[in-house]
């Protein structure tokens, strides 16, 4: 069904978008304007529109909305958790992944459900189509092709903090401004972006697209006085599939049964047997030789801008860890694509050397390059200048999301985009901004890390960043976020809300049913056969206790008590996971409560830490002045902060009545 519908839409979609951007475009005022059509921009626009705001999405090229600029995959360990959460808040990327995936696997299968990483290889075309058709069918959302020249600002609303207030934007070719009280910038690598290949440099944010944002960069830096930093990233060459000797690589099969990203889907568009494999191969000493010989011809790696430690170019990997074999994954680009994406071979040397390097790998000894790899350097706005709602502290109504905040990755961008869109919509509708707690979601961890500590290299999500990893699981993202997303935030549609509530109630009932069956250990052993229970014979255990045991499944319990448990079969996996983690999550609840209450104590953004009349060391003053934490919780997590410093700060803020609750 879904497949058919998408197919029918395929030819109509883009023309409809275009016509709407052309003749239908008459308005000069919107509730929310989103600049950029990548992962952050699309989620932001869709979320603002779901909230009820009249929203305009401006992108340089409508055709590239929903494009996967780099790797053809979604999810993974940590990132998969973000996709599940974006989906739980009714975002797009989870469903898009289910529609576009061609190779699904759950990573970390053997390491515990809290750290499972749902991941899929994607068909680039299908992903783009899905996102474009979703945006098209979203009420209150208009898409416009154009380039933003200037951000319009005026005097701030004196009742709120800030030095400026956003009033709209002006297009490069537009004579009249488009007005809006909320603007979300999701310009990715296009902010003063430069492309690098070998010894050549050209302005731009992505190969093949227009350069951009000179005017916007100027506004941010000069007019608004925002601090910016510079980061770099890169992408590998795309290889012609036919030229690769796959028999020399190791085949990596997908999961037999694909698991959908979205809580709304029971299956993926791609059938299990239609999935494509990936291939694994390795670098050789020859690769290292080519890198060393080409260093002097490689501008990008000689630059100062910080690149990510965890997604480095092959040049940096070889130079940092010489004499080792590095993994290279050959990934499909889509069902009909004739290209392979060599994950791990991002490089910026001259194209002829890229070819030489590839051919040092046995499976690639005859490889042909379709498009060479290249590097990008771009400006990002230091994210400590944002509030937890992703609004620029000094500029009312201006929100930033995605790579412009120093992150890397589709999932990180989508998560921020959604939350910036939510708050842009709320601001436009005169609702107070909202923050997500790091105790409740990876999105909360992501945003809190960004605005609370800033970045020194492109920020990527890892499960190790979350304090409450055993609670922030992919299986329960709907319970954590969907009801709140509907009841408080307003970004969740009724259909999804109803579904989440029915799941929540069903799980609750099932847990109670499990707790209602209680037997002695001896009796359980008799019922279930040969299981090893550590408790002594007379201890009474209920079904939930029992389900914690490694060897005990819900199915076993349901067959022992069919009358009261068999109706909950659909939840068997979730119940098992809940049983294992629940005792640990309960133990953490005190710490969680502490973090949450400190998150709720907000610090004024205009505090003069350097001259604050309290006893703080100069070192601590400078840290506070630089980072300007939004909350006492964020201050607590700053490196170098002492307990005494926190208490002094708390006392001062209390005394002066500065403190207000979020």
């Amino acid at each position: 069904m879904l497949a058919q519908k998408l197919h029918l839409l395929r030819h109509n979609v883009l023309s409809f978008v275009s016509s709407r951007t052309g003749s239908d475009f008459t308005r000069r005022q919107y509730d929310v304007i989103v600049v950029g059509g990548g992962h952050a921009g699309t989620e932001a626009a869709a979320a603002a529109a779901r909230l009820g705001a009249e929203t305009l999405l401006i992108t340089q090229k409508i055709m590239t909305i929903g494009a996967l600029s780099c790797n053809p995959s979604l999810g993974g360990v940590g990132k998969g958790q973000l996709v599940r959460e974006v989906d739980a808040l009714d975002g797009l990327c989870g469903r898009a992944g289910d529609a576009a995936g061609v190779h699904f696997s759950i990573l970390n299968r053997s390491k515990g459900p809290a750290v499972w990483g749902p991941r899929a290889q994607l068909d680039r075309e299908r992903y783009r189509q899905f996102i474009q058709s979703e945006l098209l069918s979203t009420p209150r959302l208009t898409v416009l092709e154009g380039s933003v020249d200037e951000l319009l600002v005026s005097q701030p609303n004196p009742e709120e903090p800030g030095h400026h207030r956003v009033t709209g934007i002006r297009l490069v070719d537009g004579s009249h401004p488009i007005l809006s009280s909320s603007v979300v910038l999701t310009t990715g690598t296009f902010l003063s972006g430069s492309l690098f290949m070998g010894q050549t440099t050209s302005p731009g944010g992505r190969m093949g697209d227009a350069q951009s944002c000179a005017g916007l960069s100027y506004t941010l830096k000069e007019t608004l006085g925002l601090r910016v930093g510079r980061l770099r990233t890169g992408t590998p060459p795309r290889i012609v599939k036919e030229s690769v000797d796959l028999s020399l690589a190791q085949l990596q099969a997908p999961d037999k049964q694909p698991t959908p990203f979205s809580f709304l889907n029971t299956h993926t568009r791609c059938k299990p047997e239609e999935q494509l494999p990936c291939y694994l191969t390795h670098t050789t000493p020859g690769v290292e030789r080519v890198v060393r010989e080409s260093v002097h011809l490689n501008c990008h790696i000689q630059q100062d801008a910080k690149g990510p430690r965890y997604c480095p170019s092959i040049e940096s990997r070889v130079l940092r860890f010489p004499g080792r074999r590095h993994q290279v994954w050959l990934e499909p680009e889509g069902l009909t694509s004739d290209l392979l994406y060599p994950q791990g071979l991002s490089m910026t040397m001259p194209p002829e050397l890229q070819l030489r390097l590839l051919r040092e790998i046995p499976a690639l000894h005859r490889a042909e390059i379709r498009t060479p790899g290249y590097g990008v350097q771009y400006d990002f706005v230091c994210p400590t200048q944002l509030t937890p709602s992703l609004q620029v502290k000094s500029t009312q109504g201006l929100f930033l999301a995605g790579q412009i905040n120093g992150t890397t990755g589709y999932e990180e961008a989508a998560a921020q985009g959604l939350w910036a869109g939510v708050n842009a919509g709320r601001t436009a509708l005169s609702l107070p901004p909202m923050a997500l707690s790091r105790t409740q979601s990876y999105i909360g961890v992501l945003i809190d890390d960004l605005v609370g500590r800033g970045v020194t290299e492109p920020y990527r999500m890892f499960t190790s960043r979350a304090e409450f990893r055993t609670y922030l699981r992919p299986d329960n993202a709907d319970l954590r976020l969907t009801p709140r997303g509907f009841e408080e935030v307003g970004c969740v549609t009724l259909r999804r809300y109803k579904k989440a509530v029915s799941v929540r109630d069903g799980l609750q009932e099932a847990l109670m049913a499990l707790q209602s069956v209680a037997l002695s250990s001896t009796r359980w052993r008799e019922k279930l056969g040969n299981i090893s229970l550590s408790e002594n014979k007379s201890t009474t255990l209920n079904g939930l206790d029992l389900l914690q045991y490694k060897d005990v499944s819900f199915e076993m319990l349901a067959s022992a008590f069919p009358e009261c448990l068999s109706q909950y079969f659909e939840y068997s996996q979730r119940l098992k996971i809940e049983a294992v983690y629940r005792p640990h999550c309960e133990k953490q609840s005190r710490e969680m409560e502490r973090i949450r209450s400190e998150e709720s104590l907000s610090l004024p953004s205009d505090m003069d830490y350097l001259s604050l009349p309290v006893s703080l060391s100069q070192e601590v003053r400078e840290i506070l002045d630089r980072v300007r934490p939004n909350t006492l919780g964020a201050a607590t997590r700053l490196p170098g902060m002492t307990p005494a410093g926190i208490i002094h700060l708390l006392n001062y803020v209390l005394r002066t009545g500065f403190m207000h609750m979020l």
Partner: protein
Amino acid sequence: IFFVHRASPSARGLCIPTRAVCDAETIFALSSGHGRCGVAVVRVSGPASSMVLRNMAGLTQALPPPRTALLRRITDPKSKELLDRGLVLWFKGSLEGVRPAEAGEFTRRAFHAGKLGLTEVEGLGDLIHAETEAQRRQALRQMDGELGRLYQDWSYRLKRCLAHVEAFIDFSEDELIEDGVLNQVDSSVRQLETEIERHLKDERRGERLRTGVQVVIAGATNAGKSSLLNTHRVPPSRGTTRRPLVEREGVRRARQRVEQADLTLVVVDSTQLPPDPQLVAAFLQQHLSTVLPSPEAGMTAASDKVLLVLNKSDLVPEEQRERTEGELRERPGLPPACFLSCSTSTGLEDFLTVLQSRVKTLCGDPLSGAPSLTQARHRAHLQQSVQALNQYHQYRDQDLALAAEGVRLALTHLGRITGRVGAEEILDIIFRDFCIGK
């Protein structure tokens, strides 16, 4: 609950109780200055406060009216041993387990409960500042010492363990994380557990700091034991020092006391020493063997737990004394010997210097501030660390997220002593130790 004690010779403590706010756990802390204060204030806050008051102040029936001070005997809740006498009072709050408070926790907790008004916070402020600042300074001082290096070493090794488990969780699916990285963690964790447990069992040093050094004065009748005790009013070091007197007659009992003592001062009447200095060493050796327990009990005359006090030095001709001193200096097999005269105080200064340095050695790191609170916290955190590490082994093969949780928790507890460890620090180790990159 507040317990307030008047200064009495034994009163180190007294206590104050405080408002119970609606938190799950009950916490306690010494709220007045540390060490030998005339009055001490101990605060207890949390749902189990009333239980603490009942059990420790002998209030088995109803509690007294709130905000009313009562003079009570304060007893150990388990052994019922009398600890002290003091004032107790309590303030009504909204309403198991009691643990030492974190720095600043009282203020934070009271504030979050909305119970602490502006003036109260200000009033409490100085007290709390003193507490947290003192703790911070003390922690810094300690961290320079031997103990600090030990904890830092554990913390570093634990960080690496955690980083390697986290690397295995976050990266092993895509990256070449060497096989066996978890096996290395297994053995490192086991090694750490053993070391921390051994440290916890070796209580004597910390114990001495908290309760004082047990010093026994032994010697023959009329050697001058009582005189020494009376002369020596100044405590040789911080903390209370008790000096049970042991008479010669109860030899068996005396030996038992000596065996349990941290330090034994063997007092000898110098007029009884052989006039020929060359014979003194052998004489003393013989004498010690009658006073001290047998070498099998782990105590030999050369043990650093013994000092020889040669009393009544004023009655010995100066020349003989000097020659004897020369003979005894650095004599292998004999503990240090000090000539002194309790009646004229000659030699007392030198003796005190020797005694003081011996006590310092016995107590480990010589802290200038009383470490009681910090020590109690350290102990609790170390114990919790070990417990948490158990969780690692328990879940190692079943659920790595829960196993890692154990290591994280252990590090959190250790971090409360050595400083907080953030996710960034763990990631730094991961990227240093592994080649990560897709």
